[in-house]
Every structure is written in structure tokens, then in C-alpha cells.
């Protein structure tokens, strides 16, 4: 048995799982599902970043009329089971905003925002419900302009229209710095026909001196360059008026005195650094990075396999798909090309067998057509 097989076997034995879920745990899940099936209202929905909400096309006739009375940030937090956060919205660190703006078919209201060191004290006893003093929490509501109610979270139509709600920082590219990159997430509930979203992400107070927006757009749960424009020279973000959907920007009224440029700079360095740089601490990783760099240098002298040059296809999620011999690559084009980038991708995938290397590289022309090619590094 060679070394690799030996390891393979050893790992199989050591890491194979003998543990099993307890019967009562499984039963708990089933009970929960049963309950959920029968649940009607005030249904807490916790949605993780990256995971999309159910989209079922079931047309419902809606007759109820949305109430005009809003719930406060505190009440929304209570409804979402965030007791400590509810208290936080009453604390001196909280800012009641209650600013509304209409766009598309919707009226959006920023109710309140809270972050800051004061939250720490509230964290005292319950670890399950903890809030982080270095995070920012905000409550935003979404109501229909025509007064018809938003679908309840138990309604299949819920989530059919996805929304992206995120802070943007003036002077920073919104596709790089937004709720997703700032380790954010949200919880949602629908009360009296108004959809409330509690968003949270890494604290934005430290950016108070730069200026912080709250961006809201409909049509996609992610940052959408059709909805917002970023002016590289001024650093201003604006909502595009020709966007087919809702797109708005609100200014977050943060206390400039709480800005912390040093901390902000350090945070951004960490956030914006290239993934490869972050792994330098690991010698094995560094070695691999170097190896890849060396291989990249050899690409120029390599031989492109003519039959491998193919235009990629796209799947439903917009990922590109490239297949050639043993290569079967599915990935999102953003991973290869920055916005507006044309030419060859920086990212190259290599495969090796018996010291013989092949590289897969992608190319994007001015029309946006992406082709893949395999290069033989003789």
C-alpha cells in the first residue's frame, strides 16, 4: 500500500462518523415541520445570506387592506424573538429614524438603527440571543404603495419579489462593500400586511465620517448594478432612475463623533484584501500560491489546444459552464472578471498528471462573450 492509500484508509477510519442523531432530535424536526405546516401568522423567518427565499408562482387574490400603523423597531425585534435587540432599540445608542421613501410599487421606511458599545451591557445573560456591540442592526419596512398587503411569510407568494437592503459606504465600491461582504444577514416578518426586515452586519458607525447610505432595491436579493451607479471619481452612489423596479438610497444619520477612521481602515484592509494574500500565513498555502504563480508564467509559452477553445454556456443561476475532456467547470463569471474587465482572466485552473500540467483560462471579449481554453504547459 502506498503512502497515499495508507492515508486515505486512515482518514476513512478516523473521520468516519459513528455518531447518529438522537431519535428525539429527528422527531423534533418532524414536529416542527408539522407545526410549520399549520402555522398562519407571525411566522419568524430567518434567512441566511446566500440562501434565497422560496419562490412559488401561485397567484393569490388579495382583499385585505394593509394597516397604516407601523410597528416600532422594538416591536419588530420582539416579534422576531430578539428580546435583547428589542431592548437595544430603546437604548441611548439607538437612532429612531422613521424616514419613508417611495420607489417602484413600494414604500420603504427605515425605522431605526442601533450599534455601538452600549449594546455590550445588554448581552449579559442569554448567549442564545446575543447581540454584538461591533455590529449594526436596523429595521426597514416594505409596504405596497397601492395599500394592498405584502404576503405573509407563510404565503407561497412571500419572497416572490426579492429585495436587497444593505448599507453602502461613500467612496467604497458598493459591490465590494455591502451587507454580504460585511458578514450580514437578516430576519423578516410580516405584520398587518407590512413586511419588516431586521438587517444586521458588521458595524458601520466607524464609517460615519465618510457617510453611509442605506440602499434598497427590488428584483434581486443581491447587489444589482442595474439599480445603482457608482461614481468612481466622487465616490458617490446613486440610484438609477431608469431601473425597472424599486431603487432608493437613504442617508443613515450616524453620529460623526463615533467615526473611527483607523479601525475603518483596518477593517477595509481585511475586507478588501485578495484571498490569496490572506493565506500567506500557512507555509503550505504560500508554497502552492508560488507554484501557481510559476505555472502562470509558463502559460505564455504553452500550447493552446485548439479543440478546447469553446464559448461557455450559462445555467439558470447565471453561472458559466465549460466542459472539455475531464474539465467540467461551473462558476459565477464575477469570480473570473471584474466589472468591465475584458481579455484573459487572472484566475487560471491547473491540473497535473505525472508532472504534466494543463491550465484552463477564460477570455472575455468586448461583447462580453466568454470563451474557455485549455493550455498545455509543455
Amino acid at each position, binding site marked *: 500500500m502506498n503512502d*497515499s492509500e495508507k*492515508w486515505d*484508509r*486512515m*482518514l*476513512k*477510519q*478516523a*473521520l*468516519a*462518523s*459513528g*455518531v*447518529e*442523531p*438522537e431519535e428525539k*432530535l*429527528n422527531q*423534533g*424536526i*418532524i414536529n*416542527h*415541520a*408539522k407545526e*410549520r*405546516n399549520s402555522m398562519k401568522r407571525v411566522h419568524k*423567518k430567518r434567512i*441566511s*445570506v*446566500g*440562501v*434565497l*427565499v*422560496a*419562490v*412559488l408562482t401561485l397567484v393569490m387574490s388579495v382583499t385585505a387592506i394593509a394597516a397604516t400603523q407601523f410597528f416600532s423597531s422594538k416591536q419588530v425585534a420582539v416579534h422576531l424573538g430578539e428580546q435583547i435587540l428589542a431592548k437595544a432599540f430603546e437604548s441611548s445608542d439607538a437612532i429612531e429614524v422613521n424616514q419613508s421613501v417611495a420607489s417602484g410599487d413600494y414604500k420603504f421606511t427605515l425605522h431605526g438603527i442601533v450599534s455601538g458599545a452600549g449594546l455590550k451591557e445588554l448581552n449579559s445573560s442569554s*448567549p442564545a440571543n*446575543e447581540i*454584538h456591540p461591533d455590529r449594526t442592526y436596523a429595521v426597514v419596512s416594505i409596504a405596497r404603495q397601492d395599500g394592498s398587503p405584502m404576503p405573509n411569510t407563510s404565503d407561497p407568494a412571500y419572497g416572490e419579489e426579492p429585495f436587497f437592503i444593505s448599507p453602502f459606504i461613500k467612496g467604497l465600491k458598493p459591490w465590494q462593500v455591502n451587507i454580504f461582504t460585511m458578514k450580514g*444577514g437578516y430576519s423578516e416578518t410580516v405584520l398587518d400586511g407590512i413586511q419588516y426586515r431586521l438587517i444586521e452586519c458588521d458595524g458601520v458607525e466607524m464609517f460615519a465620517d465618510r457617510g453611509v447610505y442605506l440602499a434598497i432595491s427590488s428584483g434581486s436579493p443581491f447587489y444589482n448594478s442595474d439599480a445603482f451607479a457608482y461614481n468612481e471619481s466622487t465616490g458617490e452612489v446613486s440610484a438609477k432612475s431608469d431601473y425597472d423596479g424599486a431603487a432608493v438610497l437613504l442617508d443613515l444619520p450616524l453620529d460623526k463623533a463615533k467615526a473611527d477612521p483607523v479601525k475603518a481602515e483596518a477593517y477595509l484592509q481585511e475586507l478588501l484584501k485578495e484571498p490569496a494574500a490572506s*493565506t500567506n500565513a*500557512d507555509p*503550505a*498555502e504560500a508554497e*502552492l500560491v508560488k507554484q501557481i504563480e510559476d505555472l502562470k508564467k509558463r502559460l505564455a509559452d504553452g500550447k493552446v489546444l485548439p479543440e478546447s477553445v469553446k464559448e461557455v454556456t450559462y445555467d439558470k443561476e447565471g*453561472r458559466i459552464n465549460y466542459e472539455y475532456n*475531464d*474539465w*467540467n*467547470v*461551473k*462558476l*459565477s463569471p464575477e469570480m473570473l472578471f471584474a466589472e468591465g474587465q475584458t481579455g484573459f482572466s487572472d484566475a487560471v*485552473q*491547473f*491540473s497535473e498528471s505525472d508532472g504534466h500540467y494543463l491550465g*484552463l483560462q477564460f477570455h472575455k471579449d468586448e461583447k462580453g462573450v466568454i470563451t474557455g481554453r485549455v493550455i498545455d504547459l509543455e
Partner: protein
Amino acid sequence: MDIDELTNLIKTHGKALYGFCYRLAGNKEDADDLYQETFLKAIELIHKMDTNQNPKGFLISIAIRLRKNNRRKFAWRQRIAPTAELNEAVDKASLPETEATPENVVLSLELRDTIQAAADRLEDKLKIPLYMHYTAEMSIEEIASVLSIPPGTVKSRLFKARRNMKKLLEVEST
């Protein structure tokens, strides 16, 4: 998803998923949480799953994402969870007496613990495919499709995981 489908899913893939959650979370309490949350999320997202295709991969991918999002919570909990409890649990859990096949005997208890600890110390990028492969028993192809990376990359990550673990083990045994 109706209750029968759910029950079936739990029956078929519950054990593999739980084992994976256990390795990732490192203790029973968090493993239970992650396991439960994964199924509840799966119920919400069931329309996105093609049951004929790869339900295990679908469940594992949810667990990975949930864990990533809940990292802070888990990291905080792990600090307070006594490690002795973990070791005990692992010992008990991974050595069911009835399954003492010759292969199992080959690996000493001590070595098993050491390997598990070394795996646990790997960075996520290497650890996750490692557990997917060895704990959840997924093929290279399945892992590639769940992580949306080419199979070659999965292989190289597994290779690197093994190499890094080997280094850790060598350091420890000297």
C-alpha cells in the same frame, strides 16, 4: 415537503449529515443545532432540490452555509464548551463496540484522536471537503458540484488537507 418526504430524507441522509455537522461543530450541542437548522432550512428550500439528483449534497451545502453564517455563535460557544467533554463524546461516539471490524482495530484510539484533532485544526477551505469526503462519504464529483469548484480543485484540496495534517502530526509526534 410533506412529512413523509421529510421522514424519508432524515432516514436516508440523517446519519451522514449529522456526522458531518458533528465534525464541523465539534460538540454535540452545536451539532444538534446545526443539524436541526439544516433540515428546517431544507424544508423552506425544498423546491430548489431535485430529489432524484443529490439530496445529500443539497443538505450538506445548507449545513455549510448555515455554519458559515453562524460562525460567531459557534465560536463563542466553543470557547465555553469544555474540550474534555468533546473528547469523551468523540471516544464514545466513534467506537461503537459492535462495529469493531479488523480495520477499526488497526487504528489506535490515540491515533484516531490525534487525526481528528489535526483535521479540526485545518482551515475551512480544506476541512470542509475533507469531512465531506471522509465523514459524509461524498464522491469527488458530488463535492465539486456542492462547492461549485472543479473536481481537480477538490482533489488538490484533499491532497493539501492530508499534507497539512501530516505536518501537524509529525510536529506532534516529535
